[in-house]
């Protein structure tokens, strides 16, 4: 019997509500339950992880009303967007929530310490860190802050400038993304990926022979759009691994979600300047409030950036004639949640900017689909595990591979079995088994279709 595996955002089934018979039978119990539920629901998001602004109960908004990407840029202001929270539903994962709200998984994880990336608890409130401090760089063309793993595209005319911002995946420690000033030299839709020798060698060592070029399609890691930069071999491109956005996972290129790179591609002409910076400490002001945003990558950054941050804060102190609360600054530095935290009001009474709660969407966009089990299909056994959590986590990770490998958990005696599939033929099953081996070090076993089906 299959155990409950994460499913799409389900609506309540007909008749699942409280019946009139139930109400007349035990009105007291139902009223009490309703009261407890209301208290739980109200307190859930109120007692979050300390990031929300204000203490009043959160206003609940439709999620579609929450702007994720495009914000007006106000003169003299360097903070855009707002914080929001959403309540987790059964079967959600942080990568799914991140993609739906155009956030990187790193940003969502850092803003919600202690929340399981793959198995967050239903009903748990997660903060959507959709408030950003613009990097300290000229507001022209594309600016990418490697520390926040976010791209800022300045657009619009001088009268009404706007910034479109998207999360990105960046290079690893071994193959970092270079910083500096560059420009877009060409744009290509459905690009072919010419496999760099270093990557071909990495794969060859693990017994995976890559072709010299990968044509457009689901196996092409560049996705559907690519912006080639003046710094040779570096690109801003899409991806076939959307769950990698917000991770140090590239060979120096910059990856965006497919839907984001499409918009960036359409709005970016050739010769657009591209400035790549690495600023883990960001200081910004909006409406008389000073914000400080610190990213975890700050640990690896030289002291110069920290010195620069203190310099900015001292300048504000001098200008206002009032001192900052050092403890508050130390706390933001220690927590490094990557969220702009209000640390100071330059004018009295400006303190609170309200966090909002957004309703969970019916469906998280881009979430991997789960095909139904078919007796006549091919499968790949991935693992037998005693621990249900471990099994569900493994299935979720397999499901979020790019391209997706559907996987689910089946109960097996007192344990749990993780099975990938269904696959339409032996070739597809072998391909999936090969990817499980190469990417996740799983020695899968191919399961043939049942005879006679």
């Amino acid at each position: 019997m299959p155990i409950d595996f994460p499913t799409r955002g389900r609506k309540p089934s007909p008749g699942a509500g409280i019946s009139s018979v139930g109400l007349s039978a035990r009105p007291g119990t139902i009223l009490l339950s309703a009261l407890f539920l209301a208290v739980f629901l109200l307190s859930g998001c109120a007692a979050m992880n300390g990031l929300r602004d204000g203490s009043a109960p959160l206003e609940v908004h439709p999620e579609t009303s929450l702007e994720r990407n495009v914000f007006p840029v106000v003169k003299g202001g360097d903070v855009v967007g707002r914080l929001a929270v959403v309540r987790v539903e059964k079967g959600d994962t942080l990568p799914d929530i991140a993609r739906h709200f155009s956030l990187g998984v790193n940003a969502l994880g850092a803003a919600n310490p202690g929340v399981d990336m793959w198995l967050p608890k239903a009903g748990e409130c997660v903060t959507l860190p959709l408030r950003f401090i613009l990097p300290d760089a000229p507001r022209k063309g594309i600016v990418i802050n490697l520390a926040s793993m976010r791209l800022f595209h300045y657009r619009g005319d001088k009268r009404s400038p706007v910034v479109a911002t998207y999360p990105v995946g960046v290079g690893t420690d071994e193959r970092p993304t270079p910083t500096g000033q560059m420009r877009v030299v060409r744009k290509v839709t459905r690009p072919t990926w010419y496999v760099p020798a270093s990557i071909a060698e990495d794969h060859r060592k693990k017994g995976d022979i890559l072709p010299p070029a990968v044509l457009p399609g689901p196996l092409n890691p560049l996705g559907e759009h690519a912006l080639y930069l003046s710094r040779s071999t570096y690109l801003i491109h899409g991806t076939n691994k959307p769950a990698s956005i917000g991770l140090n996972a590239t060979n120096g290129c910059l990856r965006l979600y497919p839907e984001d790179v499409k918009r960036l591609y359409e709005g970016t002409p050739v010769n657009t300047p591209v400035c790549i910076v690495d600023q883990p400490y960001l200081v910004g002001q909006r409406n008389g409030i000073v914000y400080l945003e610190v990213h975890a990558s700050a640990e690896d950054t030289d002291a110069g950036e920290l010195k620069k941050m203190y310099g900015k804060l001292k300048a504000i102190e001098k200008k206002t004639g009032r001192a900052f609360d050092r403890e508050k600054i130390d706390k933001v530095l220690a927590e490094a949640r990557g969220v702009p935290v209000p640390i100071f009001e330059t004018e009295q009474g400006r303190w609170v900017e309200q966090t909002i709660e957004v309703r969970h969407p019916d469906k998280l966009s881009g979430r991997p689909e789960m095909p139904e089990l078919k007796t006549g299909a091919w499968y790949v056994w991935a693992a037998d595990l005693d621990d249900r959590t471990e099994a569900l986590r493994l299935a979720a990770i397999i499901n979020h591979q790019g391209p997706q490998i559907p996987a689910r958990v089946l109960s097996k005696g007192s344990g749990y079995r993780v099975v990938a599939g269904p696959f339409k033929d032996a070739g597809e099953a072998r391909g999936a088994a090969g990817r499980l081996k190469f990417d996740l070090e799983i020695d899968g076993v191919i399961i043939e279709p049942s005879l006679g089906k």
Partner: protein
Amino acid sequence: MKRIFLGVSLVLFLALALGGCATTGDLEQVQAQGKVIDAKADQAIQDAQAAKASANEAQAKADAAAARAEEAVKKAEAREQVAAEKEERAQALFQKSMKK
């Protein structure tokens, strides 16, 4: 005068004679009370000893429960540690799988 003296002496004699009888009764009563008190003391000592034994037993039970709780906490911590390590390993593997 002699008569008065004699009368007083008689009264005193009678008082002394009667008083002597009361002291004997009192003695018996005291003895009886002593026995009661003695029995009560024995009972109290027994009760105290029983209470002490019971308290010792309760303390031993509490100590055992505390030890069990400590053991359970240690086990839970160990389980949490293992779970955290598993989660970390899974995450590291996932991150690696997201490379080209």
